[in-house]
């Protein structure tokens, strides 16, 4: 029996040899530049993470540095451990992509002062006072506003065609959490829509998760049944776009184009391009220059982008209009959160203290309405617009 087994093993090994030798190794140390690391919450199957990974890899290639991507790193001690491993591997700058990674990145930053830690979407860099810990975000509210303009034009087209009356121009929005980033997103989207379609109103539903395909799809269906004639979302799955395609309701997407899955209903999507930030931060680290504690990418830096417009679903003239508004946003003639353009409880706002410095009690600490508009993402990179303005109806904040 034993002899038979050994004979079989030997045979198998012999069979394996050619297979083994036919497979090449995979050593991909590129260039002699520095090493940089990226910590991702999920892997490339999540559109959110994919957006970071693609930008990271492109930038590393462009700058000739070695990039190491760590995927599926939970928002816990694993993030700190992974950051430590990247330090061990010789990374001089480390990025993380998920909000919940922040505290663990700070922990690592304190331990390794010689390494730069850059965290996307976080809020604490400007108060931690560490030289090697930085936050970054993009002024995605600009992109949302533009996407909202495209939505408003679609509503106008429906009103003109007689499909709906002006008072039925209700938008539905599927949000993740009642968190400032989401509030800022749907409000800027709504203001964009209302800048072209004055009668627009909006219902918002929340799923209580950043990625929950079923809940997002159900949320979109509920909004459609509630009379919403156009949908947008701030959550990472295909739930809402799919529901729209099935119901034949136009959809303004997020993070990337969903035109392949939704050829009849996808209008346009806004997204953040992280490449400009990666290029800025890596170059600074290479040259030994300081990195901003907060860095906010804009339309100008190329950090805020719109995908291609789907002519089949979008209203005629959308592209031209978006170019015009985009130019206005860049030259400062249009402000997304123009205090004259929205009201809260029936009154215009002249002053608002926002909670910019994160603390456990959410103490408002900074005056953000200056020169007639709400200065979003200027006092720190992550959004802090958390006002509930008139015209937007929150359906279920208790998820």
């Amino acid at each position, binding site marked *: 029996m034993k002899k038979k087994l050994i004979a079989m093993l030997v045979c198998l090994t012999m069979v394996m040899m050619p297979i083994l030798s036919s497979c090449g190794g995979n050593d991909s140390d590129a260039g002699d530049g520095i090493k940089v690391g990226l910590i991702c919450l999920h*892997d490339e199957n999540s559109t959110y993470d994919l957006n970071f990974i693609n930008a990271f890899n492109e930038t590393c290639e462009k700058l000739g540095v070695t990039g190491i991507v760590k995927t599926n790193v939970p928002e816990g001690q694993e993030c700190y451990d992974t950051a430590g491993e990247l330090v061990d591997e010789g990374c001089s700058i480390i990025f993380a992509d998920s909000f919940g990674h922040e505290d663990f990145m700070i922990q690592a930053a304190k331990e390794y002062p010689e390494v730069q830690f850059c965290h996307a979407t976080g809020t604490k860099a400007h108060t931690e006072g560490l030289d090697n810990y930085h936050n970054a975000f993009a002024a995605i509210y600009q992109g949302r506003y533009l996407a909202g303009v495209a939505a408003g034009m679609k509503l106008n087209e429906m009103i003109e065609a007689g499909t709906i009356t002006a008072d039925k121009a209700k938008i539905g929005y599927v949000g993740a959490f009642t968190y400032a980033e989401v509030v800022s997103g749907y409000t800027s989207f709504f203001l964009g829509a209302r800048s072209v379609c004055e009668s627009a109103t909006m219902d918002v539903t929340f799923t209580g998760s950043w990625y929950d395909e079923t809940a997002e799809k159900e949320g979109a269906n509920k909004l459609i049944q509630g009379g919403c004639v156009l949908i947008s979302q701030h959550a990472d799955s295909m739930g809402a776009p799919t529901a729209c395609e099935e119901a034949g309701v136009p959809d303004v997407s997020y993070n990337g184009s969903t035109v392949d899955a939704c050829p009849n209903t996808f209008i346009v999507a806004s997204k953040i391009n992280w490449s400009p930030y990666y290029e800025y931060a890596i170059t600074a680290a290479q040259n030994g220059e300081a990195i901003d504690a907060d860095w906010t990418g804009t339309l100008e830096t190329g950090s805020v982008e719109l995908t291609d417009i789907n002519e089949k679903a979008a209203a005629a003239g959308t592209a031209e209009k978006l170019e015009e508004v985009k130019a206005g946003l860049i030259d400062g003639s249009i402000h997304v959160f123009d205090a004259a353009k929205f009201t809260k409880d029936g009154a215009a706002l002249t002053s608002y203290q926002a909670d910019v410095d994160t603390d456990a009690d959410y103490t408002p600490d900074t005056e953000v309405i200056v020169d007639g508009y709400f200065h979003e993402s200027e006092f720190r990179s992550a959004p802090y617009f958390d006002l509930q303005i008139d015209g937007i109806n929150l359906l279920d904040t208790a998820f």
Partner: protein
Amino acid sequence: MDNKDIKEPLIHITKRKAIPKKQEWTIRLLSILFALIVCAIVMAVTTHLNPIAVYAEIFDGSFGSPRKMWILAKELSILLMVSVALAPAFKMKFWNLGGEGQMLAGILATAACMIYMGKNLPSAVIIPVSLVCAVLAGGLWAFIPAFFKAKWNTNETLFTLMMNYVGMQLVAYYIIIWESPKGSGKVGIINQSSGAGWLPNLFGQPYLLVVLVALAVTVGMFIYMNYSKHGFEISVVGESQNTAKYVGVKVDRVIMRTLLLTGAICGLVGWLMVAGTDHTITTTLGGGRGFLGVLVAWLAHFNPIGMILSGFLIVFMSRGASEISTAFGLNESFGDIMTGIILFFVIGSEFFINYEVHFRKSHRKEAADV
């Protein structure tokens, strides 16, 4: 003609008598070897990577640097403690699928102590109080289904399983209360600036304490199971409740007592995770160890020392999986496939250890081989 009338099946299976330990281990090791060969073939065919290089990288994932070894030791320690906690319940044939919820109960209790006491009290007070709370909370989470089982013979599999979801929802509820910043659904690191309620680093090593506690728990459980009256009672109840009753063992008391112990250790693990390593609370902090622990415990036949090996196999593979996903751009699911293949062979080998397969023999070779 006489022999051919009896239709002998091509394959038939008989229960083996006990075989020597050496042979048992030979079968196990061979099964792993076979598994690695099958994995290599799958790898070579589907990914065109060099399996040897991939295996080297997997090894690197656990032993590539001192930090990686510490992480391996920490992960193994935590999984081991959960497995060790579950073992007596399973040995008693009490199907405790609630390890996850019992851990979460300990996690929740510890986090609550750290959050509510962190501002006013020193660590010297918070640490013992949170330990007691966590152990009690975990114990309670296991005791409830045990009590119902003992008194009214409810189905413990379903009961413990459902208790996981109750625990998870409770944690989700408190996360909304404790979240920072508001609306984000995240608690973050608790007492990050003050470190209140954090366990100390022994000799500058953050994970050493967890490893030492795990060793103590494992050895303690080995002694408890093999050399104590309680341990004997557990095995009697596991063999037959009627026998146990007949010899005067109070079965319901043994069930409740044992589950209290299981839950308490799971609570202890939760405490170590929140106060010792992770310092945060999420609904997924348990990481499925409550279920993985069942597998680890079964693979080792409920022998705490054996669980070090089976636990090591699981943690080693999972660390390796994330390593190869970084090094080769392979999705982590590929690591899961490999782990699946290895487990298939390892579990399969238990079959060959317990049973013997006979093929129909040609009469000429009858006595030649076994």
